[in-house]
């Protein structure tokens, strides 16, 4: 405990001055082969929607409730489609938390549980649904965000333990696509150079694409998954700005259109043949 108190004191003093100085100093360099060998994992290499929305939200006043979409079906039969939509729905949950809209959080929480059950994930998720409702009722927004992250991870862990490992990346991907759709729409509504900088994520898209390439050939050949994967290649190019370059409004619009097209296919009840 003594160490923790010391850490708190030391860290809080440090924090005050930390973030003014962010310039890089060339004090050391790692060679490319070491960077290539770096560990990459879903659990730490892929940021959550909460991180993305936090970056956008602090730069400008975002109209989060303006980013809601209409009620979506929770009766999909295709498991890949359920997984993709589940990810998108969890992103919607983060949006509702940013909007501090307790009723919307409850509605989305209920839909998350329905979709998750359709995949046969853990019964323990029912408890998560109750927690989400309770935290929403009490306006505990920070806790709600943590609960949503935990729910997302629980869904993924449950999939892994049920030999549905291949679906995990689809949940992640669905969340990223929906998150990017919302962020690009918000930036287009009120363009700000600093906000637009959050869209530069080429390595992240490349990593998700590499994970899709690892799933079973059968699932990869499903028309929806194949279509999403192919379009991801184009999206990777759209988010590959040079470091330091800010995307223009037109570039933001192109990303929004690309992810919007994918999202429409993910939501559609008429699967591509």
């Amino acid at each position: 405990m003594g160490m923790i108190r010391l850490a708190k004191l030391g860290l809080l003093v440090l924090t005050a001055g930390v973030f003014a100085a962010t310039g890089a100093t060339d004090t050391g360099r790692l060679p490319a082969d070491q960077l290539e060998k770096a560990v990459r994992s879903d659990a730490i290499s892929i940021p959550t929607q909460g991180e993305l929305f936090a970056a956008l939200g602090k730069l400008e006043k975002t109209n989060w409730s303006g980013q809601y979409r209409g009620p979506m079906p929770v009766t999909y039969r295709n498991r890949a489609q359920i997984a993709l939509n589940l990810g998108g729905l969890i992103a919607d949950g983060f949006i509702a938390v940013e909007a501090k809209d307790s009723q919307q959080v409850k509605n989305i929480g209920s839909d998350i549980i329905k979709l998750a059950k359709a995949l046969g994930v853990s019964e323990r998720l029912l408890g998560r649904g109750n927690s989400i409702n309770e935290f929403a009722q009490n306006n505990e927004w920070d806790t709600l965000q943590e609960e949503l992250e935990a729910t997302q991870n629980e869904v993924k862990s449950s999939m892994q333990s049920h030999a549905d490992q291949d679906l995990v990346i689809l949940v992640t991907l669905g969340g990223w696509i929906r998150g990017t759709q919302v962020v690009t729409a918000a930036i287009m509504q009120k363009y700000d150079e600093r906000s637009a900088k959050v869209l530069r994520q080429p390595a992240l898209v490349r990593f998700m694409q590499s994970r899709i390439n690892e799933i079973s050939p059968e699932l990869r050949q499903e028309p929806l998954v194949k279509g999403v994967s192919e379009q991801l290649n184009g999206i990777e190019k759209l988010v590959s700005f040079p470091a330091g370059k800010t995307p223009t409004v037109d570039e933001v619009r192109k990303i929004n259109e690309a992810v919007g097209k994918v999202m429409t296919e993910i939501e559609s009840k008429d699967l591509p043949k």
Partner: protein
Amino acid sequence: MKRSLAIFLSIFVLEASIALRAETDAEVRTRKDALDIAGAFSNDGFKIRDGHWCGVVKPHDHALVAVNLYAGNQYWFSAAAEEPAKKIAVSVYDETGKQLTTESYNNEEKAAAGFSPANSGQYFVSVDLVEGEGGTFCLVYSYK
């Protein structure tokens, strides 16, 4: 409250991962220690990301993980190791491998690096053994 939640989450993550791979006791302990460090930042508004990376830190070797960060956010990467590791350090590199200036916290087998990226994109976080022999470590991060 935050620390309770962090501990709860660590227990939950432990339970969830048993089905996949039994985590070692050392990993559980070091993750708890890393969460304790990260918990200190919660008072300053940092949220602990529900995810972690455990491994083994070895002499003369970088334990390196890729992360994708957003410009506009502030981050703390917190790590803890266990004997025989005696002292560790956390460093951050950009996508070209250039080491970045960070705020640092070092306390023997516990360390953290604070950083605010100017550009969104891929960064690399390194956990290095400064003193002692190789041992288990765990890394978590928080953001605001």
